[in-house]
């Protein structure tokens, strides 16, 4: 019987020409995760950010207690490192998706981590708007929805685009961490091939893919924010 030597076990680097077949589906999975999560995060995090801003003193419905409760909730969501959060909510994830592995199992903790982060980014973007915007909305006879639409969301669009960019990059990073619990995607490849099998080629390829992805997202986000800005 042939006993595998250490070098054989360590040195089984995937040949470069086989990498695309391995990487492309994983890359697709990463974007599927990030895409689904970002849709949910923009909707729910956006609503939460608007609620945070509008329950504050300068907002449309100032209410100290609601604002404090919301703020506390958002801080709680942001205080756990993603790895801890992911492990802690496994029962909840299983209850929602029926599984603890795969893309959908990763979407749950990523969304839960992403919503409070995005809510704060939205609140900060709105805080940077001129304080008179609310008064303008009111004296021009706007309803609450018209005021939120015209004087808050529309005016803050460049900053909101930057917030989406920042959040997307965070989610790419979280998707890689989610790979450790078998979520699939680039992170999963990095863990199983690069970490567990010392496959240097896959490791390098995943690092390169992540760097290029983050650069591309940031570049695109900056371009969009700039296009939305007005003189």
């Amino acid at each position, binding site marked *: 019987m042939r006993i595998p030597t250490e070098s054989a076990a360590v040195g089984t680097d995937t040949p470069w020409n086989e990498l695309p077949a391995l990487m492309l589906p994983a890359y697709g999975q990463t974007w599927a995760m990030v895409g689904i999560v970002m849709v949910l995060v923009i909707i729910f995090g956006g609503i939460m950010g608007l609620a945070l801003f509008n329950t504050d003193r300068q907002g449309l419905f100032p209410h100290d207690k609601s604002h404090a409760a919301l703020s506390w909730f958002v801080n709680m969501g942001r205080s756990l490192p993603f790895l801890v959060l992911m492990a802690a909510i496994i029962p909840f994830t299983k209850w929602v998706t029926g599984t603890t592995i795969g893309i959908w199992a990763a979407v749950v903790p990523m969304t839960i981590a992403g919503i409070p982060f995005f809510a704060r980014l939205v609140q900060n973007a709105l805080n940077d708007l001129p304080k008179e915007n609310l*008064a303008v909305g009111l004296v021009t*006879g706007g309803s609450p929805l018209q005021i939120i639409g*015209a004087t808050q969301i529309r*005016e803050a669009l460049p900053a909101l685009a930057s917030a989406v960019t920042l959040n997307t990059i965070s989610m790419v990073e979280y998707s890689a961490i989610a790979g450790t619990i078998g979520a699939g995607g680039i992170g999963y490849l990095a863990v199983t091939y690069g970490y567990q099998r010392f496959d240097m080629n896959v490791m390098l390829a995943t690092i390169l893919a992540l760097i290029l992805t983050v650069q591309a997202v940031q570049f695109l986000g900056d371009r969009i924010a700039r296009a939305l800005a007005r003189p």
Partner: protein
Amino acid sequence: MIEIRQLHKHYETAQGRVEVLKGIDLDVQSGTITAVVGPSGAGKSTLSHCISLLEKPSSGQILVEGKDLSVLSGKELCAERRAIGTIFQNSALLRRMTVAENVALPLRNLGVVHHEMENRVAELLNRVGLADWANSYPGELSGGQRQRVGIARALALRPRLLLSDEATSGLDPESTTQVLELLDSLRTDLGLAIILITHEMDVVRHIADRVAQLDGGRIAEYGELRGLVADPGSVTGSKLLPLRPDLVPAGYDFTLTVAYQAANVDPAWISRLGTEHGARVALLGGSVEAHHEGTLGRVEIGLAGIAAERAIAVLAGWGLRATPRSQQLLASVADRAERIEVAV
């Protein structure tokens, strides 16, 4: 006509209740400009927020043609807000909207149909002289132009009252003049009631018909601009046209403060005192301003070769109200005032 009746506003703070407005009464007639002036902390901003219905007064009424707007809330408040157009300090235009979109904002909020909105916006931009700038963004305009867009936006819903909250603060003199000329024309052409909340006495002097001096949450003085300027005891009048401290120059007998009471005072009155009455006149200070209702002025003169009582009577005949500046003279003139008037 806008009537503000016994307007009170207080805030509850950790230190207890703070009363900011303590019973404000103000009438603003259509076609007039009323300036509300006062030091910082007098309650100008709170009054402005109450009038523009951004804050609910603690008690009191804001009556626009008899209807109390201070008690409204919800949809009714949204609808009635159209009676009051507000111009903000620094114009407060929305930066991501074009000039036309900013002006159209109140119309769109009210659901005005598209082509009607376009016509109205074009008409308003014409009115403020910015028809060529419809598709520009506020960032491409000068401060004065931005403020004129703000005025167009405030006019969009055909309000009956225009509230200008420090609208010319921070503008250069030329832009200030443009904005004031525009407000002046709105008063005349549209018959708008305009409330001008400001700390700039230059602005008040130029354009106001009536002035309310706010101090410590109360109206300390309120009256016609001309009356306040002509009243030697008026604090507001002396702020509007300030004079140097009372000093009788060497070689002169006494000093008089002379206020322009009539609208058409002979501008050569100083030389006439010399030629017709043999007086020697020293011009010590003062200011004379053109106003849409005639010249406003407050001048301090030193006199010799004429009795104070006679000088006062002569000036009164020319539409000028003269008051001795030294207390002693004031008392002696008061004693004999009636007799002199009869004599002249």
